[in-house]
């Protein structure tokens, strides 16, 4: 027992060895020592209520199991030691009951406390990690803001090459959104504004606060807007304007282009000969959301597609 105590102290010191083989060996050895009492001492001495060979030494593996396996491990080891004790004595006395109750209490409580401590430790580590990540992100955002973003904005502004200027402007906008991080939105909702196309040819007019919609609605509406913008730019428009209005009962998005527009009376013709095919598919999408689409065209002032999607009540 002295030898094993020394050896166990040494073995338990290293975290890599603190695993189930050592724990099982420790418990098995303790049980063996306990059960050997009948030969080491005598039947008479045991029956007289003398302590077993292991005495309180038997509590050591119970505590080790509790630390390793939480309340379940501690209780399991306590039950094993208690069972061995009862088998050894063949009867349950006041002293064994006390011992067993103390063992069960010790195994359970130590296991529980260890589990709590581990959880707390993990929570602290996680919080520290999150904070470090946020700090790093802020540092990156500052650097990107002070350097790359300024350079991109400058290129987009001074470059004589329109394509390059447009590309720089797009990249500037998307990089800025990336480093500023997604605005925190309620679970299951999305900010419609964050899903709209960001292109040099598209000018967005948005409210200052996020336009929150259920995620599926926001995605579908944004797809419809993208289709409307693509359609506008394909049919003679060189630029497109997207206005988002957030009303208490509905969200309105209008997409206008600077194309030639459609003369009065020609709108129905245009829809018939397929020029408005895309507009029809947009109509379908928005109708699926319970909304409506209105196409208005003023000669010389382009075509406007107005999408209106109701907000779910409540």
């Amino acid at each position, binding site marked *: 027992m002295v030898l094993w105590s020394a050896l166990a102290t040494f073995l338990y010191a290293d975290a890599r060895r603190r695993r189930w083989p050592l724990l099982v060996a420790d418990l098995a050895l303790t049980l063996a020592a306990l059960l050997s009492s009948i030969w080491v001492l005598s039947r008479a001495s045991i029956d007289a209520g003398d302590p077993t060979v292991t005495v309180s030494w038997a509590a050591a593996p119970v505590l080790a199991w509790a630390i390793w396996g939480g309340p379940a491990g501690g209780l399991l080891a306590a039950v094993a030691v208690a069972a061995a004790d009862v088998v050894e004595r063949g009867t349950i006395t006041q002293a064994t009951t006390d011992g067993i109750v103390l063992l069960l209490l010790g195994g359970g409580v130590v296991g529980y406390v260890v589990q709590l401590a581990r959880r707390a430790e993990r929570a602290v580590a996680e919080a520290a990690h999150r904070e470090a990540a946020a700090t790093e992100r802020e540092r990156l955002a500052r650097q990107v803001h002070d350097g790359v973003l*300024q350079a991109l*904005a*400058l290129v987009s*502004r001074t470059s004589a090459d329109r394509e390059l200027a447009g590309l720089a402007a797009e990249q500037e906008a998307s990089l800025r959104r990336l480093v500023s991080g997604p605005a925190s939105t309620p679970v299951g909702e999305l900010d419609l504004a964050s899903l709209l196309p960001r292109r040099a040819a598209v000018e967005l*007019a*948005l*409210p200052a606060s996020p336009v929150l919609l259920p995620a599926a609605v926001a995605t579908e509406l944004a797809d419809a807007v993208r289709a409307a913008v693509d359609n506008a730019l394909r049919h003679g428009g060189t630029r497109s*304007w997207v206005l988002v209005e957030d009303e208490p009962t509905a969200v309105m998005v209008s997409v206008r282009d600077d194309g030639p527009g459609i003369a009065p009376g020609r709108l129905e013709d245009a829809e018939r000969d397929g020029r408005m095919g895309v507009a029809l598919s947009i109509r379908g999408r928005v109708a699926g959301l319970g909304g409506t689409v209105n196409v208005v065209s003023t000669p010389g002032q382009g075509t*406007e597609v107005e999408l209106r999607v109701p907000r779910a009540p409540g």
Partner: protein
Amino acid sequence: MCPEPPAELRLVVADDHPIWRDAVERDLAAAGLTVVGVAGDGEKAIRVCTATQPDVLVCDLQMPGRTGVEVTAAVVGLGIKVLILSASGEQADVLEAVKAGATGYLVKSASAAELIDAVRRTAAGEAVFTPGLAGLVLGEYRRTEFDDGAPRLTERETEVLRLVAKGLTSKQVAERLVLSHRTVENHVQNTLIKLQLHNRVELTRYAVDKGLAE
């Protein structure tokens, strides 16, 4: 379209990025405008404006020390017009600056020609209403629609703002609504003035509540 500018416009440029500030300064100078001072932070912007009394302050939003919104609030009191030159994605700050008294807002990726036109119009007392700004102002009126004492848009003003937000020029808006160009400009201007007045009232009320003023 814009009215005849004063003989010589005097400007201050405030931005904390030297490369950017220099580029803006060069563009303005090339167009015959005089940059009488530059500043790399908010405190200095206010000092330079106080000392030089420019016609227009071309102001960045994010600066160390005092922000563009605070600088705007300080210098409009000196009778200086403010044109905000902001990066994209700063809508909330742009709105605050406009409420604090800025009369124009341009994104930083706007071309040199657009910038110069905007500076001239700001100096002439016109509001530089980009579609983006119109969208912000519309959104702000919608947000406060049910607040007591908050300003309201007339039906006409809403109509005009929506068309501006959809990218129509004020001439096109005038054509569509059969109004004079001047009337359209007045409507647009009014929507801003009402917001700014309300903002001032709110700030005063806040100050009184906090015991900072009589």
